């Protein structure tokens, strides 16, 4: 035993001595980080729920990204560089998001995260990404924390309209068009519901008679729906994800609650909600898409329901040439549209690409980027939030029918104005943004 101890001690001493003697730290500063960028490639990545409860719909977004990058790569890439896109599954579990983001940043050494999905999930990694100075672009969520305070998260940028302006636009529309409605809110109990409620209350303070919240994961929402019914609500504003849109429809069918429904953009994809309705009701509901006929919602991207739209045509061509199985869906379009904005930013950043450079470019000229979004971006040095507005639409036979022009606004008491300036942006002929 004693010899054992001695051997270990000697070994320890030798190792420590051998490793000693580093002295002072080397000096010197680099101009910008080029991690993930070579002369011929740019490596980016993101976390998405490919498995688990949030996977339906959302797992299609990265396939849209991939198809568009393949399309750009087949046309020569950006400044001669091909885009590599690494997708990691986090199962919509924030703890896993943290682990896979470690993998993306530390092992894959991505240049930037593009499109990481989810409010609770991405919240877990936003500090890490910013501390590591990794550009965190176009988070797939409308929480305010992706851009209302760039000092706190200088490398993070939102993309879709945030939930507060969506709440404002919804609230304003309801006050003008349904002034006598008794409004009930059905909210997801996190930033999504909170920010949406904040926006809607600005206009509907008097009209809201009841608020019910659900926690994602708990699928029994009958009590909440019964509460709304008991309060005599005749218009429900739902800030829900697609599965809870379907669940709320089923729960109200069961108790014979027939209000008018207004769902936020996130939870209103007719194709997905229709298929979820069929699945959750175990086949009892077969006309899922028609069940949500007459539902009012919002729209900020032309989708599959507008097959003649120039942007939809572009996405169809891209998907036909580079899609890997399945039909083009609104989620794939969402992914392609994000990818389009990223390519646009890369073009604008020029040949000498660094992490700092792309942030600078987005702050300087992101506002003027033309793209598929119906409303312009808001990017500036003081704000990193994305698209500035949306239009209110009514679902008819699985397609959205415009009820308003594009409405544009900002946080707080910024006014809501009709603004079609970005709605008529046409895609470039080759489908790749110019610089």
């Amino acid at each position, binding site marked *: 035993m004693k010899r054992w101890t001695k051997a*270990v001690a000697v070994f320890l001493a030798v190792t420590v001595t051998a490793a*000693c003697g580093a002295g002072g730290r080397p000096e010197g500063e680099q101009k910008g980080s080029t991690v993930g960028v070579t002369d011929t490639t740019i490596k980016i990545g993101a976390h998405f729920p*490919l498995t688990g409860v949030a996977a339906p719909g959302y797992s299609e977004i990265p396939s849209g990204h991939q198809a568009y990058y393949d399309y750009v790569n087949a046309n020569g890439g950006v400044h001669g560089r091909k885009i590599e896109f690494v997708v990691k599954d986090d199962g919509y579990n*924030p703890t896993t998001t943290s682990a896979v983001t470690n993998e993306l940043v530390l092992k894959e050494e991505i240049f930037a995260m593009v499109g990481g999905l989810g409010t609770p999930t991405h919240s877990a990694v936003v500090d890490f990404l910013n501390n590591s100075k990794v550009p965190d672009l176009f988070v797939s969520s409308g929480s305010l924390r992706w851009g209302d305070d760039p000092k706190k998260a200088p490398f993070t940028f939102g993309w879709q309209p945030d939930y507060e302006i969506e709440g404002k636009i919804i609230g304003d529309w309801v006050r003008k068009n349904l002034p006598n409605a008794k409004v009930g809110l059905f909210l997801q109990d996190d930033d999504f519901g909170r920010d949406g409620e904040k926006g809607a209350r600005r206009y509907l303070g008097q009209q809201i008679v009841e608020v019910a919240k659900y926690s994602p994961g708990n699928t029994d929402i009958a009590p909440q729906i019964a509460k709304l019914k008991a309060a005599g609500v005749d218009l429900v504003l739902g800030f829900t994800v697609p599965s809870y849109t379907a669940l709320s429809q089923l729960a109200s069918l069961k108790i014979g609650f027939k209000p008018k429904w207004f769902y936020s953009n996130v939870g209103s994809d007719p194709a997905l909600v229709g298929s979820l309705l069929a699945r959750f009701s175990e086949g009892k509901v077969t006309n899922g898409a028609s069940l949500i006929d007459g539902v009012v919602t919002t729209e900020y991207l032309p989708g599959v329901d507008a097959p003649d739209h120039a942007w939809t045509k572009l996405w169809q061509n891209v998907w036909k040439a580079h899609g890997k199985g399945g039909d083009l869906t609104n989620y794939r379009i969402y992914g392609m549209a994000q990818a389009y904005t990223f390519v646009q930013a890369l073009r604008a950043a020029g040949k000498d690409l660094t992490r700092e450079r792309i942030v600078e470019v987005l702050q300087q000229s992101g506002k003027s980027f033309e793209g598929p979004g119906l409303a312009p971006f808001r990017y500036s040095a003081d704000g990193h939030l994305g698209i500035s507005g949306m239009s209110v639409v009514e679902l008819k036979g699985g397609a959205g029918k415009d009820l308003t022009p594009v409405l544009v606004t900002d946080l707080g008491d910024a006014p809501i104005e009709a603004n079609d300036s970005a709605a008529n942006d046409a895609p470039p002929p080759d489908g790749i943004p110019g610089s």
Partner: protein
Amino acid sequence: MLRRHLPIALAALVVVVLVLENSGPFLTAQFTTMAYLAIAAGGLTVLTGLNGQLSLGHGALMAVGAYSTALLLRSDALPLLVILLLAMVITLVVGALVGVAAARLHGPYLAGATLALAVAVPGIPLFFGEALGGEQGLPVRMPEIPAWLADAAYFVTGQDLTSIRYLAYLSWFAVIAVFVLLANLSRGRVGRDWRAVRDEDVAAELAGIDLGHTRVRAFVVSAGCAGLAGALMALSARLAAPSGFALTLSLLLVSAVVLGGLGSLTGALAGAALLTFLPPLVTGAGTDLGLSDVQAAHLAPLIYGLVTVLIVLLAPAGLAGGLRKLIHWRRSS
């Protein structure tokens, strides 16, 4: 006893330093994951393997440790080590309360009661959303590395001590400390009592062992480990959120203990390694084989299940037991 385990601990220390100094940042982060799983599995293997109490609620105890850490870290007043110890003590107290109830239960009833704990605890932060962050959880910020430590580490190793490596060291030093303590406990009188109660409680009682006390003691020790593991997990994930402590975590811990070998600390380490390294390995292999991302993501749970079936079939005593058998067989032939 300490003389028996101390040299092993010292050797382990050297191995830890050598391995961590030569690992890339991602591997280092994975080692941290392995470390906190090993601590939790170590505590559980003592409870289940040595004392015969099956707990399906250790994930919930880890949550207690994690949330304690997140709340304590909000003020900069306390040094990290103190916070870790406090998180451990708080979980210990919770464990004692649960343990008192658990000591009256046997087999499936105990499993059921701890299962209820695993289901109920993640609901607490949802209910107290204001204070505990609800579904999104509480962010956990890794405190700054003390300047003297950073300088000392730089002097010795020649590279800057990143916060990732700092946490990895902290976690592995914790593993070593916890395992030495557990090994000592299980070899001494306490451990003999645990085993006696597990094997034949009537005989143990006749021999003058207080069944209740012994069971509670085992549960408390095990809960303390879970608390420390939870604290390290929160630091490593930079977050304490209910979804991180779902029922699956508790079940994965049990499966790690069973795969590694019930009652064996080496087994706990092996099980933790399996939990940490197998899924990314499988997903990576799947992607390399040309599977789509979605298919590759579904591959990991499948392979984990198959590995579990294989180990249970081929090495019923777990990885550690199988290895021991192999060595014996070699020696005797």
